[in-house]
């Protein structure tokens, strides 16, 4: 009898183990890609003094500085997961984070996936620069939109091509072939760059298009800014696009690009802020690429913080919602002082004004949060 009961017990235990396993398998199967955030949100929902954000890796260095400063003065902890813009949006869609951050506004498909309206608040601006490896060329290389598109389409293959020579008079261009380096991972940087090329080149628009990953007609892929920078540094005759901040920090050579007004603009914090000094629509979802501003660098873009317009969802407290909005409001005002030192472009006054209006439109239980 004893033996029998023991046998039953063990088989029950074994059954329980299988049941747990199979349940976890099934939940993995159904849950989709982003399960990583759910644990932390469950834990912190009881702790209203810690907010969770996820998204753009471009924003990460700035956010860590901003949030640590904010923590010193307000004691609010912010846990920001630098998982990439797309993953940040899907975590916000699944309501596992308080805010998302993205280098591109949500597209149609992402918009239809969320159950409630999301507002985009511009938080910083960055630029994508063309870095190159031409030891012979002493002056800064100049590029026009047409030449740039032709290079990345694989139509211009040598550095001494007449089209390049025509806009770089006096420069000693070598007869070496052009090696193109692009991002291999999906990224907001690629999105800004391909959006720009799509705007300036009809052929690029139809052949390749814009997106965080595209089907590159030519070139080598490097993972992350460091991967592309590595390829450029190592390969003579290479050209590739990287973030402005990364190029400045690593003292890499980068080209002047001709903007819509016809001026060749050196990418810098000032010229990026200038690019954002245009009329910004009330929803702030504007691409700064190919800017109208005469002294603006044409391959720039905003980075946005994304939050739900109605902050009462799941079991969020009004306190938590207020803390989140205060944090973002601080980030677009006082927080901007930290951008310069980290090579981010501070928001233009126009962008801050739009951001303020958007923040005021956020509600908790249909009542405005910020006065």
């Amino acid at each position, binding site marked *: 009898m*004893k*033996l029998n009961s*023991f*046998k039953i017990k*063990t088989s029950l235990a*074994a059954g329980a*183990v*299988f049941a747990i*396993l*199979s349940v976890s*398998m099934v939940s*993995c*199967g159904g849950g989709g*890609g982003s399960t990583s955030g759910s644990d932390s949100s469950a834990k912190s929902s009881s702790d209203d003094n810690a907010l969770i954000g996820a998204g753009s890796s471009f924003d990460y260095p700035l956010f860590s500085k901003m949030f640590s400063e904010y923590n010193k003065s307000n004691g609010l902890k912010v846990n920001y997961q630098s*998982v*990439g*813009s*797309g*993953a940040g*949006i*899907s975590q916000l869609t699944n309501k596992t984070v308080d805010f998302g951050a993205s280098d591109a506004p949500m*597209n149609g*498909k*992402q918009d239809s996936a969320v159950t409630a309206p999301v507002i985009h608040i511009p938080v910083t601006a960055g630029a994508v620069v063309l870095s190159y490896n031409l030891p012979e060329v002493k002056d800064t290389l100049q590029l026009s939109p047409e030449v740039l598109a032709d290079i990345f389409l694989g139509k211009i293959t040598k550095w001494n091509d007449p089209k390049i020579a025509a806009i770089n008079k006096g420069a000693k261009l070598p007869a070496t*072939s052009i*090696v193109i380096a692009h991002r*291999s*991972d*999906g*990224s907001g940087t690629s999105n800004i760059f391909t959006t720009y090329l799509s705007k300036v080149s009809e052929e690029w628009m139809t052949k*390749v*298009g*814009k*997106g*965080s*990953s*595209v*089907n*590159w007609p*030519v*070139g*080598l*892929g*490097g*993972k992350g800014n460091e*991967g592309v920078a*590595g*390829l450029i540094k*190592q*390969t003579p005759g290479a050209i590739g696009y990287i973030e402005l901040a990364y190029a400045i920090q690593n003292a890499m050579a980068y080209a002047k690009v001709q903007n819509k007004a016809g001026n060749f603009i050196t990418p810098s914090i000032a010229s990026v802020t200038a690019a954002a000094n245009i009329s910004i629509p009330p929803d702030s979802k504007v691409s700064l690429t190919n800017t109208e501003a005469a002294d603006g660098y044409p391959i720039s873009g905003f980075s946005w913080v994304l939050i739900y317009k109605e902050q009462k969802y799941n079991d969020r407290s009004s306190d938590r919602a207020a803390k989140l909005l205060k944090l973002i409001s601080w980030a677009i005002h006082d927080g901007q002082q930290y951008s310069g030192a980290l090579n981010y472009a501070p928001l233009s006054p126009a962008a801050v004004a739009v951001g303020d209006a958007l923040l005021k439109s956020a509600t908790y239980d249909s009542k405005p949060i910020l006065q």
Partner: protein
Amino acid sequence: MDTSVENGLVTRSDLPLRVSNSKTPEAIVKAKQRIRRSFRQIRTENVFKRTLVIMGIVMVILVMGILLTLIVQSLPSIKALGPKYLWGRVWDPVQDIYGAWPFLLGTLLSSFLALIISIPFSIAVAIFLGEYYPKGWLPDLLKNTVELIAAVPSVIYGFWGLAVLVPIVRNLESHIGVEPIGVGIFSSSLILAVMIIPYAASLGRSMIQMVPSPLKEAAYGLGATRWEVIRSVVLPYTKSGLFAGILLSLGRALGETMAVTMVIGNTSIIPKNIFAPGNTMASVIANEFTEADKAVYLSALIELGLVLFLVTVVINMIGKRIIDRFTND
């Protein structure tokens, strides 16, 4: 399960039987204690056995669960793209066209090339350590160094490859007249070859050490030289083990991600030769998964994982068949 219980009783039945004849009270108590103790032993035995069975089943469930998850999650892409996915040559996330052929080709090309490069080294190390110098400080050093190769994180191989190996390969390429890019399938195969040597070498070494010495002594006794002993006794005796080690290292090469993605050039254009840049399935998944913002795109990436899984299974099955044939003759 019952048989083991019965076995336990049968093996100990002589004790209680003998006691039942004498029938003194103390003897009965002792007998009961013995029975209780033997029940306890049987129970421990059963618990141990069951733990083993459960662990085994958990592993099977885990692998089946992964396969199931991959299939379920790639259904949208299988529905949308059909079997053309496997031989499609264009991977264009913007227009939702997904073809895995360039990555399938890149994976197989880089892995098998790496295997071919690594085999001479791993077999040589295995013979040196297993047969020539099994003991001593130099073989110990070599053995530990080879095992350390397996312990180095792959991202370090990637950086080393990018900083040291790629310029050397570029130099080589400019001498033999191909486009001197440096990164490409050849560079990634070299890195992979270094990374997979320890798997085949370690297994090969222990196999060679297990060759019974009477066999070798008999060969020496017949006047065979060391090379002849290795060729006609050691290698034939250990070939299935050596092959198993090579198979293990091939599996490692197929799935390696980080080091490969750093030196392969990551382009979805079909490679024209082994020096051309390419891409592997594992590195595409690692590169594009975080920013896959469309349902079909995400699903196509997961299907890539499914294809990689199946390729590994098929290669392992073929390998098992070859090992079986080796051991049969």
